[in-house]
């Protein structure tokens, strides 16, 4: 099945810093999504981005489908950005989303 690899596994930042999270895929990109899981466990969909670039406030994402990777950019990080960021891609273009193990982000004040 499709393999989803995220890096780095852990990231610690000072408030105000920028960061880039990466997601690599072993198969073609069809249904790429980024999620944020806050410290209370709630999962929020950030982007649906099978290709191209999208921006939402301080967050943006780029997917290069031909090279099978996606990047999530966080600018001017805030303590509320802390949590785990997951990327996910569907198994063989099906309805089955496969999740990476996540990047744990800690933003210190």
């Amino acid at each position, binding site marked *: 099945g499709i393999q*989803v690899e995220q890096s780095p596994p852990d990231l610690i930042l000072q408030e105000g810093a920028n960061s880039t999270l990466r997601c690599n895929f072993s198969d073609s990109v069809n*249904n790429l*999504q980024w*999620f944020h899981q806050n410290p209370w*466990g*709630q*999962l*929020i*969909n950030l*982007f*649906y981005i*099978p290709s191209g670039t999208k921006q939402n406030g301080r967050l943006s994402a780029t997917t290069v489908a031909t090279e099978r990777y996606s990047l999530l950019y966080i600018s001017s990080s805030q303590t509320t950005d802390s949590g785990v960021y*997951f990327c*996910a891609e*569907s198994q063989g*273009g*099906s*309805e*089955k*989303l*496969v*999740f*990476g*193990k*996540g990047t744990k982000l800690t933003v210190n004040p």
Partner: protein
Amino acid sequence: NAGVTQTPKFHILKIGQSMTLQCTQDMNHNYMYWYRQDPGMGLKLIYYSVGAGITDKGEVPNGYNVSRSTTEDFPLRLELAAPSQTSVYFCASSYGQTYGYTFGSGTRLTVV
């Protein structure tokens, strides 16, 4: 809109007991999913449904059953609970394959 609602939020189950985790969505989404998340891990798909009356297995279906009699509801049944089923369970829904997911707030289940 309430979005995706899961009940209960927490539950302790004894080994061998059975229970049903409830999931309801009010967004008229056709697709619904059940995932489990173990500590420090990503999410693994248990079962999913592309519409009322249609369900299919995901990556880790053993020990679970589902039904989808209505568009809104997608309950997950645990039969003969085992300690390995201790996990956080998330229900999600979407309009379809090319749409983003909306997750419920999760059910933290402990089997002792």
